[in-house]
């Protein structure tokens, strides 16, 4: 099975991506999706600017997906990450994992997100409502801690 990995400026459609993985595959019992949205950060955010490293972003997410496929018996795996300007309430990232059973689908999606956060070459900068460009979002220790759960 080849995972689907897309790095794109455009939005994505959750149902369409789930449909792509489940259509005509009736051995799938579990579908877990994670959608990451842009928060408004208490109303002060106008948009998030997402910078990425083209080429490496695809390669690194591909490596994380391969690790997930080796670890869990998955039927399908999709990861989509947007770049550019994303406004509060809009979608940033999607992971969908399908499997015969729910434990594999839950764990693989959780694992993918932990590694996307800490290893995929994306950086967020805040654009504030007052028109200024704020600072780069700082990496959080708890994201590293989350990724280290997987050994």
């Amino acid at each position, binding site marked *: 099975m080849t995972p689907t990995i897309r790095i794109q400026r455009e939005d994505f459609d959750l149902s369409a991506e789930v449909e792509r993985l489940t259509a005509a595959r009736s051995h799938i019992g579990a579908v877990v999706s994670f959608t990451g949205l842009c928060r408004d950060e208490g109303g002060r955010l106008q948009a998030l600017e997402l910078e990425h490293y083209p080429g490496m972003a695809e390669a690194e997410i591909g490596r994380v997906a391969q690790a997930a496929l080796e670890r869990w018996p998955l039927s399908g795996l999709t990861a989509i990450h947007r770049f550019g300007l994303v406004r509060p309430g809009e979608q940033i990232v999607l992971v969908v994992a399908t499997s015969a059973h729910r434990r594999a689908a839950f764990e693989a999606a959780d694992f993918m997100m932990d590694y996307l956060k800490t290893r995929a070459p994306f950086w967020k900068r805040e654009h504030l409502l007052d028109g200024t460009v704020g600072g780069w979002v*700082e990496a959080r220790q708890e994201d590293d801690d989350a990724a280290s759960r997987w050994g």
Partner: protein
Amino acid sequence: MSEAMIQTRPLKLVYFAWVRERIGLAEETVTPPAEARTVAELVRWLKSRDEGYAAAFADEAIVRAAIDHTHVKPDASIAEAHEIAFFPPMTGG
């Protein structure tokens, strides 16, 4: 590969986020001296070039590096590298 070859081989460097902003460049091609054999040694050489690099690498422990699209540690050899990237800790997802 002889040191003379290493010395003259041009190397593409790419920078992202605040590393890019502090250096003032998104990418450049450099020819580091032969004694710059690892990522850490390359950083040391870059820091000596001007204050933008010095500011970008002020806390060397925090800047991450990748060689040809793969994360590497500071002691990684740059001998076979074509493109080396420097960037802050990732904040995607």
